[in-house]
């Protein structure tokens, strides 16, 4: 039985991966009130982008320390292009249509992307091994960071800091906030809201791609369906934190990761619950949490609004 600090760190690491993917849901929702259910697949194709760089672009036997930054770049390029294409050709034509239309499109797109990888990626019908970093595990005090998690440990906080800086401090970031809060008035300020929407899709995809590389390293494989459960979890994280709020996505991700890890670790200790502590129940606890949040705090943890006084 692991002790609590170790479990908390495991939970934070898992949660930061959820958070990275959750950003895309929340950014797009915040700006166009669309739940981009294809976002899980935008995450998935990023994983394949990274793998492609490793398998088909770099020479055999390239050290992971050299390969990883390039794989990350490949992941980001593939995810971002997919997201921009989805926005341009699937969602933009439906802007102003009833809400159900883009939602159905998103689900269709999600299946299409899965099937495309399944059919056309060499060996894509099975799980493909993802290259691993050598060395580790790493000891920090009494806590162990697994080799596959070290990427998350380093990159997740950096990514979140970059995002926060971008949104709060840059001109485009301010334009993004304005567009989320009042799109018509944002136009009056001279903000090209169409461009902001593309940027939101692209940024969300870039963070999902970082998440996908983290996923490959953590679980050692990528697979055409990997975006389904992870996408749902990240969506849960976004709702948990308060959809539309980027800090909410991060916090929701971390909270979900911790809750899931602690549930898996400790629920079996509760008398009569021993059969519910296995890893396969972790997903169930994640979605139980989603349902509880929707019931008792539908606006999420940070979803409180400053009233727009009439």
């Amino acid at each position, binding site marked *: 039985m692991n002790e609590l600090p170790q479990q908390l760190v495991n939970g934070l690491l898992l949660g930061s991966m959820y958070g990275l993917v959750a950003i895309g849901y929340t950014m797009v929702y915040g700006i166009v009130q669309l739940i981009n259910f294809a976002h899980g697949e935008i995450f998935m194709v990023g994983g394949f982008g990274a793998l492609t760089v490793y398998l088909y672009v770099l020479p055999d036997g390239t050290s992971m320390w050299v390969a990883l930054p390039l794989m990350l770049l490949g992941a980001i390029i593939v995810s971002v292009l997919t997201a921009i294409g989805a926005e341009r050709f699937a969602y933009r034509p439906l802007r102003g249509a009833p809400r159900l239309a883009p939602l159905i499109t998103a689900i269709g797109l999600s299946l299409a992307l899965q099937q495309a990888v399944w059919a056309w990626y060499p060996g894509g019908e099975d799980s493909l091994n993802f290259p691993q970093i050598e060395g580790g595990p790493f000891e920090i005090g009494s806590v162990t960071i697994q080799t596959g998690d070290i990427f998350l440990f380093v990159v997740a906080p950096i990514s979140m800091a970059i995002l926060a800086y971008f949104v709060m401090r840059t001109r485009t970031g301010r334009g993004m906030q304005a567009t989320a809060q009042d799109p018509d*008035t944002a136009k009056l300020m001279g903000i090209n809201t169409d461009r902001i929407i593309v940027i939101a899709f692209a940024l969300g995809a870039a963070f999902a791609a970082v998440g996908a590389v983290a996923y490959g390293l953590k679980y050692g494989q990528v697979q055409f369906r990997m975006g389904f459960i992870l996408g749902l979890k990240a969506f849960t994280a976004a709702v948990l934190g308060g959809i539309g709020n980027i800090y909410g996505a991060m916090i929701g991700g971390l909270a979900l990761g911790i809750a899931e890890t602690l549930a898996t670790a400790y629920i079996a200790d509760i008398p009569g619950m021993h059969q519910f502590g296995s890893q396969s129940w972790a997903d169930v606890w994640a979605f139980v949490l989603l349902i509880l949040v929707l019931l008792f705090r539908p606006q999420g943890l940070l979803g409180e609004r400053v009233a727009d006084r009439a």
Partner: protein
Amino acid sequence: MTALLEVEDLRVAYGKIQAVKGISFSVEAGQIVTLIGTNGAGKTTTLRTLSGLLKPVGGQIRFNGKSLKKVPAHQIVSMGLAHSPEGRHIFPRMTIEDNLLLGAFLRKDKSGIEQDVQRAYDLFPILGERRKQAAGTLSGGEQQMLAMGRALMSRPKLLMLDEPSMGLSPLMMQKIMATIAELKAQGTTILLVEQNAQAALSLADRGYVMEVGNIVLSGSGQELLHDESVRKAYLGED
């Protein structure tokens, strides 16, 4: 000399409902022009069309010699036309300072922007005191000041104000009207939509009276102020 803004036979519809039915008016540089009229007359619709937020069904809009009909909304402000919308529409979850900076979104002159932020704080000291506060926490009147300050941040040639006195106390109302006069003195041209016809007409060089999508009367501010039908309909006299 042609006018700064010329509107000709402008028609705007929401689906099948015609809200503006072919109006023509003009605004000369340096003037204050007011549009008054009953609720639902089409004043806000007119301003939103000038800003590009609504597409006209027909007619012409020429601003500073250029047609605005094909210009997307987000490019209008860079041509020198700023709009403080009805109901203020400040960005509630951003700070007062960020709201002002958004008004200067397309400007690149950092020092000029800083000066203008300071000018907004001089004009409305309460905004300076609260600069780091979320704009949504301001009172209605304070939000109105912010909306006006924000519109000025683009250094517009023509400032459109849609009911700047809405929900303000008489004192605040006077201050807003004095600010409008001051802006005119500094050379800003203003198109003012107001419910308070008395105040608007007293300030205005020219006024237009709208009723259900049409302009039914026009004249100098003083003429309209003394017009019998205007006094009856808008100044509450019988």
